[in-house]
């Protein structure tokens, strides 16, 4: 499938037509109301668990502008040619028809915390007893001088999946022989710590076949990164000489990017590249800011055991937007937090039994064909933060069978979490 401009426009028109109908139903019920903003890893999961476990006792509304959610997870595998884009697309039909969730395709544009309503771009205001925000991330303006979202067609971020990912893949495919792929890596914290480096692996995989003299440069503001030893050994083995990871201490800071001329200025030197993948600094999705529950770094602090905002007990924040402690910002984490929050919300609104919070995460990354690695940990809620209790990581020198098994497991996980989110 192609995410053509036409299909996007069509989607937008349909969205506009549909925004008001389901919401009127929501408002006419006497049941406690939960409104969920964002139908991604956190939001779809929490809506599904609330609807499923409350067995009709709660009125659940899910607000999500897009009709098809393209998961960021596995989008790097699409770049590498291991997955189709269709296989990453998920729709909300089952959540609506089988779980009775009111799915509203619109943007939430404001939260009135006193009146307890969420306003939508389409003009309506939805009342809630509990609000869940799982809007993912937005980019910090000005974090990469010279770049803003209006430049994303020249220098894609591909850090929200869909047309951006498609564009980046097309650009890499169109690279001249021996050309340069440059990545501007983000500072901490950001969604999916191994994501940029898995992406480099997948781009290298694609180039190795089609454009073996090409180079990959990573400009990184960080001194180290997730699964670094595993990635660097993997690059050395599978793509020798192709990948250069350059940390800012070594090169000097990134001063600016020039989308028109496809240049980067780093430590006073100008580098020209054929593809520039800019992954800017991140913050909570804008709606969290609009609800005024974010801190000075742009993230929303939460109570670990319930994911309630520290600013407002009627709002829960999940996933990437939450400032919660030790869990990485991943789809797995968002899904894990969603189940804890669903349990707490149901307890508060229907009096159901509340069980202790338990969290876990595993992030798989693919380095090359059948070469999967993983890192994971278990967490508990302390008063202060979600704290890591134990963990594991793949090791260098593992044999090929184990790496293959790890990759196969990740496919199993993708199937599992997709079902867990969308039913």
């Amino acid at each position, binding site marked *: 499938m192609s995410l053509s401009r036409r299909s996007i426009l069509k989607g937008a028109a349909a969205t506009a037509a549909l925004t008001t109908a389901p919401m009127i139903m929501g408002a006419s019920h006497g049941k406690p109301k939960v409104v969920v903003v964002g139908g991604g890893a956190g939001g779809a999961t929490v809506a599904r*668990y609330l609807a499923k*476990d409350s067995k009709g006792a709660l009125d659940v509304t899910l607000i999500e502008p897009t009709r098809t959610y393209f998961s960021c997870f596995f989008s790097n595998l699409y770049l590498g040619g291991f997955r189709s884009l269709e296989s990453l697309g998920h729709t909300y039909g089952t959540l609506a028809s089988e779980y009775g969730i009111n799915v509203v395709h619109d943007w939430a544009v404001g939260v009135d915390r006193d009146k307890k309503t969420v306003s939508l771009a389409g003009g309506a205001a939805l009342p809630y007893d509990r609000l869940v925000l799982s809007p993912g991330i937005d980019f910090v303006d000005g974090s990469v001088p010279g770049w803003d979202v209006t430049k994303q067609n020249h220098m894609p971020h591909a850090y929200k999946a869909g047309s951006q990912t498609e564009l980046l893949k097309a650009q890499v495919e169109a690279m001249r022989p021996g050309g340069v792929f440059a990545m501007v890596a983000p500072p901490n914290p950001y969604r999916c710590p191994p994501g940029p480096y898995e992406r480099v692996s997948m781009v290298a995989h694609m180039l190795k076949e089609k454009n073996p003299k090409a180079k990959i440069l990573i400009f990184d503001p960080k001194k180290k990164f997730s699964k670094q030893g595993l990635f660097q050994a993997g690059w050395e083995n599978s793509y020798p000489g192709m990948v250069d990871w350059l940390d800012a201490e070594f090169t000097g800071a990134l001063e600016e990017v020039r989308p028109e001329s496809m240049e980067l200025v780093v430590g006073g030197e100008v580098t020209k590249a054929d593809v520039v993948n800019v992954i800017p600094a991140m913050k909570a999705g804008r709606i969290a800011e609009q609800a005024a529950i974010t801190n000075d770094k742009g993230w929303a602090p939460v109570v670990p055991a319930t994911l309630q905002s520290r600013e407002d007990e009627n709002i829960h924040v999940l996933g990437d937007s939450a400032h919660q402690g030790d869990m990485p910002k991943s789809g*797995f984490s968002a*899904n*894990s937090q969603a*189940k804890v929050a669903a*349990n707490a919300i149901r307890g508060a609104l229907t009096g159901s*039994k509340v*069980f202790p919070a*338990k969290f*876990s995460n*595993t992030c798989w990354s693919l380095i090359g064909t059948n070469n999967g690695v*993983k890192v*994971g*940990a*278990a967490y508990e809620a302390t008063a202060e933060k979600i704290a890591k*209790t*134990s*963990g*594991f990581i793949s090791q260098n020198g*593992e*044999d090929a*069978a*184990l790496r*293959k*098994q790890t990759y*196969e*497991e*990740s*496919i*199993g*996980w*993708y*199937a*599992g*979490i997709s*079902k*867990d989110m969308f039913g």
Partner: protein
Amino acid sequence: MSVWTARIVKAVSLAMVLAVSPASGPVGASEIGDAKTGARLFQVCKACHRVGKDARNSVGPHLNGVFGRVAGSVEAFRYSEGLIRAGADGLIWTADSLDAYLENPKSLVSRTRMNFIGMPSAEDRSHVIAYLRAFSDKPSDIPEAEPTSTATDHAVDPAILAIVGDPDYGEYLSGECLTCHQKSGSDSGIPAITGWPREDFVVAMHAYKTEIRPHPVMRMIAGRLSDEEIAGLAAYFESLE
């Protein structure tokens, strides 16, 4: 409790003893049996396995040099994915792991193809293991033990299996599992865990918890579940079809 169930409890409680008190000296599986008796008992294995000079693969892999060998690593034998997976994850044949495998192959190795119901008597197993040891390069891997201690000394701890799990709690806890395991029972790369008899389920979970089974994700997950929580999960997953 069925005979079969009782057998597994033993494997589990034995495993726990081994895991919890490594300093308390060789116990259970580590005992040296009698290789001669083992040769006789090996008859049941012979339906599928050869051992000794010129032994070849048949229904099962040849068992020469099995001690210290990575599970699923005899060349040219087509193992199940489950055994290859376990080997890739670090399962190595030692007296302890062989003991657990021979007692109940499926409780140690997910979906193994060894269609053998298991050998209930710990004593019999120790004899067979002693017999196999004679065909291994590294007999030093079997710790010598007091011949007087017998495996059957180890009290079965039926308490773990007797716990009646709370399926509601199990359902809540299952949320963690369903990120990877599918509720529908399909397997896209991670095994299905629905509809298992609860005893099997408890045994498998304890095998991760006590680190007899090698998988790191499952060890971490099972490692922080209490016996009650495992029972709750077993009750819940048993109820899913």
